[in-house]
């Protein structure tokens, strides 16, 4: 049920944002993987992050601005987006070049694991939809007490 809602939501976001990357005709040429941000995972924070990357002429990322999303997730997404590279599609005239692309990150937690031994999955549905999924760590008594400042 939750997965179905996520897919609808994610597709809706992609449909809204995809033209901005497709019309610009920048395509990712180098994609870098990322891990679920540890703090966000411990705090069980999930959700969508949208970032806007400003590109240099050679397709390197100059700057990444957060459009929306939780700050803990957005920081990680921002750092990841900075490592990507883009190439201009040869089929589109250079005069219509836009200097920006949007990337949509979805962070999800599912299943259970022991912290430091959580399985993660990273995948990209081109051109701009990124999923980072991790198992959810069990909170031990020690961690809970630390969190409460005891």
């Amino acid at each position: 049920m939750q997965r179905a809602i996520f897919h609808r939501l994610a597709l809706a976001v992609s449909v809204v944002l995809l033209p901005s990357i497709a019309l610009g005709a920048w395509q990712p040429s180098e994609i870098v993987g990322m891990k679920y941000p540890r703090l966000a995972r411990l705090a069980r924070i999930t959700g969508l992050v949208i970032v806007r990357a400003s590109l240099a002429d050679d397709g390197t990322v100059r700057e990444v601005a957060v459009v929306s999303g939780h700050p803990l997730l957005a920081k990680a997404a921002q750092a990841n987006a900075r490592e990507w590279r883009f190439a201009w599609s040869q089929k589109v005239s250079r005069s219509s070049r836009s200097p920006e692309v949007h990337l949509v990150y979805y962070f999800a937690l599912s299943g259970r694991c022991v912290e430091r031994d959580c399985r993660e999955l990273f995948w990209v549905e081109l051109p701009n939809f990124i999923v980072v999924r991790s198992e959810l760590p069990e909170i031990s008594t020690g961690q809970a007490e630390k969190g409460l400042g005891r």
Partner: protein
Amino acid sequence: MIHLFWLMFLGVVPADGQVGPWAVRKIVGLDYPPDALSKGLEGTVRVRCDIGHNARIISCYRVSGDPGLAVAAIRNARRWQVERAASGEGTYELIYHFQIRVVERPTEESKFRFVMPTHIFVVAERPPMGHKGR
């Protein structure tokens, strides 16, 4: 499916992700295989996948490289998705580069990088031999 629709509608089927008559659509990350890392196995593995007429991956197999690393590479390649960029069945090839860096303070996570259209770099770090850890 909607991605494909937009790309076709806008006439922007990417040339950059294209491998022969196929365009990569879904890229799945890969961690350095723990066994290979503990044995210090590294190197390049070429994997070829056969694609059926409906763009489904029928099978992937090792073309060259270490058989141990190839197991992880093949398992990963089977999870990728491609789409038809031109007519016909065919194959696409992915080249995995497994690299181990020796550093004083290794991070526990390996790094995944995909360079269009076929190169995948999986980099892990380990401490120098005889290093007693942090």
